């Protein structure tokens, strides 16, 4: 057994990465297709209010209050989207900045917690508890079941909501279910990668897979695998280098993204030059 695995906190972190990485990668394919990257960003930032509120109310572990506050914010966003003429972008920007401001103020009132601010912003591998791993496993199970049970409706929904409705998809409930699953996943990812970086775990694997995939099936499979490789690779690489986990995961994913970018550019160039270059 590699020596880093003898550390219990590393076992927990690696397990969390193995569960959360593929889950983020899988959902990320739909998140990017539906232009919801900024939504993930908003949810992640609202976790700060969850953390601060949780401590204020007397929780020792912020996981549950974070999940709760993130879900409330997601529902508030969906409600505002349906009941106002505002652009989704605008609604999210308002919610993001207000929840960060609330979180910062609430933390300021608890001086012993204020020192830990960077752990929430950029992730803290030591903070991942066995409870977190268990909750992540349960959410992952639900995500896998829902995504594969409702793969056709979800795909149609990502293509066009009107077409999905006419094709018999119950658009509104499915939309809420999808948004809540993304919310739970992002909220859990905050413990591992941090508020500021968690969106990278959702968006980058899907974006990387897009460069290689020629259809949705490949996109989903590759996105899931890349999420797994990036998240667990980041945890494993960070240990000997003594790097913080969040940024290491994000940079691992970013490196894979650059490879995909180079690959897809090369492929496009090959496709767009049908005539062989004459040899001198």
């Amino acid at each position, binding site marked *: 057994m590699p020596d880093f695995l003898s550390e219990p906190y590393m076992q927990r972190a690696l397990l969390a990465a193995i569960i959360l990485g593929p889950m983020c990668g899988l959902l990320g394919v739909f998140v990017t*297709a539906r232009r919801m990257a900024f939504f993930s960003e908003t949810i992640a930032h609202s976790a700060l209010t969850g953390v601060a509120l949780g401590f204020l109310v007397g929780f020792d572990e912020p996981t549950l209050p974070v999940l709760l506050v993130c879900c409330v914010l997601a529902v508030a966003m969906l409600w505002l989207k349906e009941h106002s003429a505002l652009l989704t972008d605008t609604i999210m920007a308002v919610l993001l900045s207000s929840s960060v401001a609330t979180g910062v103020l609430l933390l300021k009132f608890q001086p012993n917690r204020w020192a830990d601010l960077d752990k929430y912003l950029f992730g803290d591998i030591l903070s991942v508890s066995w409870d977190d791993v268990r909750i992540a496993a349960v959410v992952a199970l639900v995500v896998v079941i829902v995504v594969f049970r409702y793969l056709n409706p979800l795909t149609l929904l990502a293509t066009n909501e009107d077409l999905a409705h006419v094709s018999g998809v119950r658009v509104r409930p499915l939309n809420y279910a999808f948004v809540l699953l993304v919310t739970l996943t992002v909220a859990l990812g905050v413990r591992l990668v941090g508020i500021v970086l968690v969106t990278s775990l959702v968006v980058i694997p899907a974006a990387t897979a897009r460069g290689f995939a020629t259809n949705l099936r490949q996109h989903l499979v590759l996105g899931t695998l890349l999420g797994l490789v990036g998240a667990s690779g980041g945890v494993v690489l960070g240990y000997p280098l003594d790097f913080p986990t969040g940024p290491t995961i994000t940079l691992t994913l970013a490196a894979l993204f650059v490879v995909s970018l180079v690959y897809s550019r090369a492929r496009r160039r090959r496709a767009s030059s049908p005539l062989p270059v004459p040899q001198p």
Partner: protein
Amino acid sequence: MTLEPATPVENALEVEDVHVQLGDTRVLRGVNLQVPRGRIVAVIGPNGCGKTTLLRCLLGLQKVDRGEIRLFGKPIGPEVLARVGYVPQRLQVDPSFSLSVREFLALRRRETRFWFWQTHRATDAHLRETLAELDAVHLLDRPLAGLSGGQLQRVLIAYSLLGRPEILVLDEPTAGVDTPGEHSFYELIASIHRRLGLTVVLVSHDLGMVFRHAAWVYALNGVVCCEGPPEEVLDAESLKAAYGIHVAPYHHHHHAGHPHAHPVVAPPGQSVPIAFRKR
């Protein structure tokens, strides 16, 4: 003088006194229409007159403030929508979405559920056959997001046909199709209509097409300001009523015989289909 239709024709679609307000605009102000089964019916009218809104009402995408809509005699719901094929006016597919045409079409087939679009040989043959009809087999493995406007329209029609619809609802199906393409496009819809006996409701700005293929035309402008067979609606006076300005009529030779050659169920309260029902 009453002129009863020889045999009562069952209506695929009935719209009764439908009112819709969007924001401050009263878009539909009491729209009535009947579409008999197996007909091609066209809805024409100027931009912003509520054509798309009307179609969205038919599909349950837009709530009506007042009035009633029945498809095959039933209120709009998942059960009747299963018998409808819809081709929207525009469909934006995000380029970051990798869905291929094959996968997209497979979504319409029940047997692909739980199978991750694993193409069975039978499904594959079916998709090819449907695309072949629309001259689009070569698009099978292309990404949906990379298609041109006209290619996308063909794929969307293939998608709706795969659901074995009884009524096809098309919103400006040739938006984004070049002129020669447009011509063959309507020929295509007309031939599908003939072969499958579908009811077709379509919105179009192309009066030439409407004249050639539609059995009945509704000119919409908040209300149905004029309806009838195309050779009557598409003359200068009724177009003026519909569009509010002078529009050159569609030139055509007059057919000998009856203008009302088509059995049409009269609107409620009227026994004769009225061609020039002006406001």
